[in-house]
């Protein structure tokens, strides 16, 4: 999914690399002018070739000079050296939908790990930059969430409540996760907790039927807490492993709808609250994730519609904002279009060295 971001990051990365390389090579030029003899470290042959016979000698390449410096010098990076490249990186993140405040934080992090430090350069400059970026992104994305392991290690039924704003893909995700868990051998029951939106009960009903998963439904307009309470009762009495509770989409700035969600939570006592948002959301992803986390909590995040774009900055925005693990990525409208989120893999892919 992150293909676009990857390309852009790679461009920014090589830009950063070259700007640091400039820093390193310029003192080499100085050293050459002044005779380069005051450093006691053994200089490689090419550097020690007397300048009288330049025509017949292969001129030292940038890489050669660079190698010398790797041995002889420490690298001190100044803010000025990297500021152009960092603002390019900043643009890249913004264009990838990483929200502005989150972008600011990442840039600050990368800058901090590059600027002002004395560094022995044992490896390539490239890996210095990549290292800083990787640290920043891993830091932001945290670790994933292993749902199967969670279910195995908790008393049944494991009750999972799905929340989020309108149209992000909650219902479809409930169906996908139901299918996924069923394939793993777990028994599942779905609670049709959206009793509000027209066609919602029918929608989740069709999914459940196609998947052969038991569903508990009340008529439209009923109390969602009541349906979900019944679902939990059903699971308990039938020794079902997992309860998947769908809810109506709602906006975080609507107090009555949020308190309804709070009531649902009190009544069904979920083990996990899963917040569902879409990968294509922009800066609002930060605001609403923060609000949902604050009012009803969120233990894990599912990001849907990753097939729509190749950027996925919302993953970074949300993870950074609420610090909760990303559990799954939705990649289409079929039941199999769901993949566990693996931060290290994603970061590796982003940075092009997976």
């Amino acid at each position, binding site marked *: 999914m992150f293909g676009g971001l990857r390309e852009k990051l790679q461009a920014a990365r090589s830009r950063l690399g070259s700007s640091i390389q400039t820093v390193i090579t310029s003192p080499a030029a100085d050293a050459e002018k002044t005779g380069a003899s005051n450093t006691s470290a053994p200089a490689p042959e090419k550097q020690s070739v007397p300048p009288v016979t330049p025509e017949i000698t292969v001129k030292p390449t940038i890489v050669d000079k660079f190698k010398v410096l790797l041995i002889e010098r420490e690298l001190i990076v100044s803010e000025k050296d990297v500021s152009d490249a960092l603002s390019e990186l900043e*643009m890249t993140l913004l264009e990838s939908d990483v929200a502005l405040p989150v972008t600011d934080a990442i840039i600050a992090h990368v800058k901090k790990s590059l600027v002002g430090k004395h560094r022995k350069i044992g490896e390539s400059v490239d890996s210095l930059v990549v290292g800083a970026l990787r640290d920043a992104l891993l830091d932001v994305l945290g670790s994933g969430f292993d749902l199967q392991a969670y279910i195995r290690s908790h008393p049944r039924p494991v009750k999972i409540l799905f929340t989020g704003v309108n149209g992000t893909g909650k219902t479809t995700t409930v169906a996908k996760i139901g299918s996924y868990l069923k394939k793993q051998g777990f028994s599942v029951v779905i609670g049709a907790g959206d009793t509000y939106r027209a*066609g919602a009960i029918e929608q989740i009903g069709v999914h459940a039927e196609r998947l052969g998963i038991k569903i508990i439904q009340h008529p439209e307009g009923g109390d969602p807490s009541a349906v979900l309470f019944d679902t939990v009762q059903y699971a308990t009495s039938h020794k079902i492993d997992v309860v998947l509770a769908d809810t109506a989409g709602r*906006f975080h700035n609507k107090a009555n709808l949020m308190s309804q969600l709070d009531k649902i939570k009190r009544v069904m006592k979920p083990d996990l609250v899963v917040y569902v948002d879409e990968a294509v959301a*922009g800066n609002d992803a930060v605001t609403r994730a923060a609000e949902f986390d604050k009012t009803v909590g969120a233990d894990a995040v599912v990001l849907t519609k990753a097939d*729509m774009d190749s950027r996925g900055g919302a993953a970074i925005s949300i993870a950074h904002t609420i610090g909760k693990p990303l559990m799954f990525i939705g990649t289409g*409208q079929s039941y199999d279009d769901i993949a566990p989120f693996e931060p290290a893999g994603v970061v590796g892919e982003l940075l092009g060295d997976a």
Partner: protein
Amino acid sequence: MLDGLSSSLKDALKKLAGKTVIDRAAVDELVKDLQRALISSDVNVKLVMELSKSVRTRSLEEEPPKGMTVREHVLRIVYQELVRLVWASTDVKLEPQTILMAGLQGSGKTTTTAKLARFFQKKGMKVGVICADTFRPGAFDQISTLCTKIHVPCYGNPQEKDALKITREGLAALKEQELIIVDTQGRHALEADLIREIIDLNLLTKATHRWLVIDAALGQMASEQARRFHEAINIDGVIITKMDGTAKGGGALSAVAETRSGIAFIGSGETIEDLERFDPDGFISRLLGMGDLKALMEKANEAIRPEDVNVDAMMKGKFTLRDMYKQLEALNKMGPLKQIMGMLPLGNMELPEGVYDVTSTKMVRYRIIMDSMTPGELDDPSLINSSRMQRIAHGAGASPDEVRELLKYYKMMQRTLKGLRGASGGKFNMQRLMKRFSGMQ
């Protein structure tokens, strides 16, 4: 943090306040804050860069119109550049037509279809809806439930998998209706088969309008998605949904720019009635993270905070020098006095020419002079005789003539206010007037 951002834009604007010469650094700062505000509202980054570039160039190169402060000048340019993007309002005619709904999965097409049906129905048109979504489970239940609520015929068939076939049948079944809205399944730019399908649906329906429904929260990819839809079916209007949340709609704005269309409607809630016509001022204000356009256009209500202007005292005939100063300050923040007065509903009442002639430099002088008055003199300027005048002038490092000028201006303002009171039959309400004024579009 968004508040912090918008306040930084406001701070940058403040720095331009009272300036009479264009300050390059201040403009640069403003442009930078403008960029941040727009980017955090999800306006396409490239679009933001183009836009801010022309704001900068124009601010520095164009001569501010006479009587306009630098700040107003820059704000006006910001506003103009933004309005230029959203300006084309989509023509909504009350005549027979077919509307094809298009958009990404979950953007709000079906809900908006019902809202539009209701909108045109209320305008007295005979409306019919076709459910061409053959994919999403419960799609037909959803739209037919909504249509039943408003007694609008809805054609569909959950068993049929061919959207074109349903649409063809639906057009025939609903031929008595004047206006047909075709709801389609969600799709995105990378789904070639579905893009093909909507091209075919467009050809089949010969749609009058092809409206792209966009979630207010859609981020940077909005432009790209819109471009693909535009290439496919020539989008001629954008509907922004879910504006009742906290998203700013910058993605939708970028889609409008991409399709060179306009914003037809705004969705502002989950119920059928929650549909609004597009209001550019409100939209731009939100985009910039500023309370409202009044603030943007510098004729802010905020400039006239009730606590700043003691309207009641003024109306009771008590109008002190202090009141006058606050008044001036507030009016000065709002823009050229003359322009504002010209907009007030005062009939053809003549205002003395001199009322308009207080520049911000002069206001600073007035402030200094007033600083060397006693509280008694400020409250009751008639106390100021010639010896007091000497003392005040001396204390302020001003000439007695300047003090006299200030007092003269004060008297003129006092008279003007009396005139205003007369003109409005004693019921003059400054705040209401200002509100009315700033609500003007």
